[in-house]
């Protein structure tokens, strides 16, 4: 194995030749994997400086297909593990991936609290509305009253609004992507990674086997004669807070993002809904111990720390 030359990074650099996805044909996960590799090439970090941390589910397998450090963790706990990885070594570029059940269901508490912390991570949620790996049960994003062909009965629980929840939790970069809109998704991932703080991209994706409602045809709008997805930027929507010290602007931008998050049906917005430059958790840590502003715990926390002063405090 050779260390990658950062001068010649391509999507292929981040591919793994002898490990092949076991996703179903037509799965949105292929689109997301492809966009991640392209984005990583654009970001210019060599593979050994990247860590991809995933949850459990079809999407959780994504680190197996990326040439980088990878941890395929537990159902709903990817953000926790990623938080530990990033705080241990801030020099790593940490991407987190998981499904909508993983992030908004079993991991909902960690989804909320990760927003509060604002660790410098990019979190990609593969949102297909169903639990694929367990054969098609409704995910927390399945709308009330909807019934896929795989569900025994229509959903009688209300769906979660991930964008609204992210706003309420303090995420500082919130976007929605679509797995099949490649150049846009690559661009969103690049921006999410470059953002300082916790970035969420809720990525809509078809599940060709279990979700016969959110199909490629649905997103293409074959029934209504136009694409359902549209770019927020094309309509002049600007989710970025330009003056982070202006509380009024922050509230206005949050309200606008939440309003947009309820758009569904014939028109589904894609793009950055909200972005705020705010101190990261790492910034706050450097406020406590300035060395953490320039070095990682990995380098600072060596065994054999001098504790004589500490012991003497108890004498």
């Amino acid at each position, binding site marked *: 194995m050779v260390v990658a030359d950062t001068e010649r990074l391509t999507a292929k650099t981040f591919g793994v030749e002898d490990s092949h996805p076991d996703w179903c044909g037509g799965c949105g996960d292929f689109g997301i994997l492809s966009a991640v590799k392209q984005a990583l090439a654009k970001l210019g970090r060599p593979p050994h400086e990247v860590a991809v941390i995933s949850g459990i589910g079809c999407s959780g397998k994504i680190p197996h297909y990326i040439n*980088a450090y990878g941890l395929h963790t537990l159902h709903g706990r990817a953000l926790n593990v990623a938080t530990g990885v990033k705080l241990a070594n801030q020099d790593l570029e940490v991407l987190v991936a998981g499904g909508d059940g993983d992030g908004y269901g079993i991991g909902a508490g960690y989804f909320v609290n990760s927003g509060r912390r604002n660790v410098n991570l990019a979190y990609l949620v593969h949102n297909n509305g169903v639990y694929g790996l367990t054969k098609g049960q409704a995910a927390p994003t399945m709308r009330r009253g909807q019934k896929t062909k795989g569900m025994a009965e229509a959903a009688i629980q209300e769906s979660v609004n991930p964008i609204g929840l992210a706003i309420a939790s303090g995420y500082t970069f919130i976007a929605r992507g679509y797995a099949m809109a490649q150049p846009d998704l690559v661009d969103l991932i690049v921006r999410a990674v470059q953002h300082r703080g916790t970035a969420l991209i809720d990525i809509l994706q078809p599940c060709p086997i279990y979700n016969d409602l959110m199909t490629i045809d649905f997103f293409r709008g074959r029934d209504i004669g136009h694409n359902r997805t549209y770019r927020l930027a094309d309509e002049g929507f600007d989710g970025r807070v330009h003056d982070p010290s202006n509380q009024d602007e922050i509230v206005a931008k949050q309200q606008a993002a939440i309003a947009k998050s309820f758009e569904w049906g014939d028109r589904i917005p894609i793009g950055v809904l909200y972005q705020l430059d705010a101190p990261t958790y790492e910034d706050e840590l450097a406020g406590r111990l300035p060395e953490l502003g320039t070095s990682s715990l990995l380098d600072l926390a060596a065994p054999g720390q001098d504790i004589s002063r500490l012991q003497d405090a108890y004498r």
Partner: protein
Amino acid sequence: MVARHGKPNRPLAGDDAMKENALSWMIGGPALTGGVNSSAEVFAKACARAGLYVFSNIEYHSNIMGRHISYRVRTSDTPVHSHVEQVDLLLALDSETLFGTPEYQDYQRHGGHLHRVAPDGVVILDAKAKIDHSAIERDDIHVVALAYDDLVRESVEELGVTYNARRHSVMRNMVPIGASCALLDFDINHVVSLVAEVLPAHRQDMVEMNRHVLLHAAEQARRAYAKEEFHVTLRPRPERNGHMLIKGVDAVGIAKIHAGCGFQTYYPIAPASDESVMLERQQTQYPIVVLQAEDEIASMNMAVGAAHAGVRAATSTAGPGFSLMAEGLGFASITEAAGPVVVLWQRGGPSTGLPTRQSQQDLRFALQPAHGEFPHIVVAPGDAREAARITHMAFNWGDRYQMPVVVLADKFIANSLVTLDDLGLDGLPIDRGEYWTLEMNGSEPYRRHRLTESGISPRAVFGTPGGQYVTTSDEHTERGRIDEQVENRMAQMEKRMQKLDLAAEEIPDEWQYEMVGPEDADVTIVGWGSTRGPITDALPVLQSEHGISANFLQIRLLRPFPASVVREKLNRARRVVLVEDNYMGQLGMLIAEQTGIKLERMALKYDGRPFSQDEVVEAVCEHSAADLGRLVLSHP
């Protein structure tokens, strides 16, 4: 089953004689408003500063304010590690301290502490508290009543300062200390210098006020105490005045810093959070991040992530939190994370149970803390110093064997204060385990879970050039790829479990067990964890007062279990008594499982209180006199 409770203990040795520095002191009162904790801790510290050996332990309810606290201080001229049942001096801030509460009297479970007072002992109480003096009904003890608030007021006004209850009533906590000093013939300046240290620069005017309160309390106590001399005196031992007075939670915190633990996570829980709070205060001084997570699932998994990224990581919790950590522990083990170190401060279970009380109920849970079969290490320290040293070693073992390590401590160690020369951390080895570097593989891809002779696969810390790998909570190949094939499954299972055999082989004996006392004895006491204190204190008493020679087999390493040495020691023992703070005799079950030896004589306690020295003595005496089988102790 023999159930015993409620009877006063036999008198302490040499009760009639003057006792120098051998004191059993207790203060009781309501939580938060009473100043019980500060009185006890200041008094304990003053004794430690004077060169006495001190052991001090607290009993408190799971409440914010108002419920009964009792705090003991025991001093000695030789090291002490436990409390005794009797008290020489009882400081009562309220009626409950003496008589218990009516609701509890229904259960005959908490009848107050009056019955603990030794013959010729003294009760010092607040004359203004609602205490029915006539109910004391003991003519073998002395009662000293002081009007705490009046005394504080007079002391303040004497200095020409207008008395202000809000500002000055805090000095009530000096009254019992001053009174104690008078009876014990102990110079109040030991206390005054501590007060000066504790008070901030702008409150130094309070030092003189505190001194006056101490002086007045001492004077009035001397006047109210009818007798010439109290039977215990405290004599300073200046040659020993440099030792520490420290709680287990702080000792472990210091050990984590020393070990280079860079990342500690926690969720608030009694009695564990004090350790994390201590570490939080050190974040501006040392490279450690203490993260208060949203729950223990997050705590655990964050620590696992940091361990994979190469930083020594730890978390700290009690039983309820450890229940939530189960899933993450299994994940750490199958992915061969280097750690994390989990300090489990046991308390009374099940469920919420007894949040602030002692137990050793979590041994079996700690041995099998998650589904599936996986390796991890479980090790139980016997006191604060051992807790520090074992915590240090736990990081070494996590790094070397690439598995989580559970340090199984408890409330008795967490909250008890003990005098120590140091924590014994200097000179302990540092082992970060085997690392992988690019040069080691040549052109071959890195195999994170490589099958090796020892079972250990050199690890590439995230960020190592050329080491990119993925690993997973699924069963996986040497390269960390998901795999369900039969041969690979067996090879990886065997590889992981083999590391436990290696650990059993490599971990030096001193971390596995200790035999305290004579190799050959009438009785061999077997235990683990914090019962070490009362058991080791009981050994000389058993010999000198009851003519029973006893030794103590303390088992520290519980997984991997030192089966052959335990079998050998037990086969050689004449009469074995198992001592545990639980209902089931969990160590006994483990010993039976690992050695085939069933220990019939048990001394168990599951009342949520730690063993006292006297209870161990009592248990061994009773087991020596008859074949009792299962003996249950409680002295409410």
